[in-house]
């Protein structure tokens, strides 16, 4: 499964723990919306991901 995380704040320890655990079983991609402005590509990533989680 492909999981896409969209970050809107600084990663916290709980996020990092969850990310680390999910990476053992899934393909995980992270996009920092604070710095990434390539919105066409971001939409494509949202479409392509099995799960999208904002954090």
């Amino acid at each position: 499964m492909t999981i896409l995380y969209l970050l809107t704040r600084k990663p916290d320890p709980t996020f990092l723990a969850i990310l680390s655990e999910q990476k053992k079983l899934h393909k995980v991609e992270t996009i920092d919306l604070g710095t990434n402005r390539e919105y066409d590509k971001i939409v494509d990533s949202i479409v392509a991901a099995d799960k999208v989680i904002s954090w």
Partner: protein
Amino acid sequence: MKLGILVNTNRNFQALTGITRAASGKGHEVVIFAMDEGTWLLEDPGCVSLSELANVSMSYCDHSAIEIGVKKEPLPEAIERSSQYNNASMNHNADKVIVL
């Protein structure tokens, strides 16, 4: 894809407009629901103008807007004054939901 965007802060305006415009341009349906601090963005013409885009619908939690004191009188009719029912509907019907 039907994309739901829950806007519960006023900190991600650029991402909101960028993702909404990009998704609309690609022919995706976008449903925006604003609540809590996200209703502040209803005072921003750049946010309000998203309701004019193809395949984009917008609504907001009136309870939040009243609590926060948002000036919402000049809002276009396309932006629906609503409740958590619209949030429930967005989540029920969207393929993907992001939170900004």
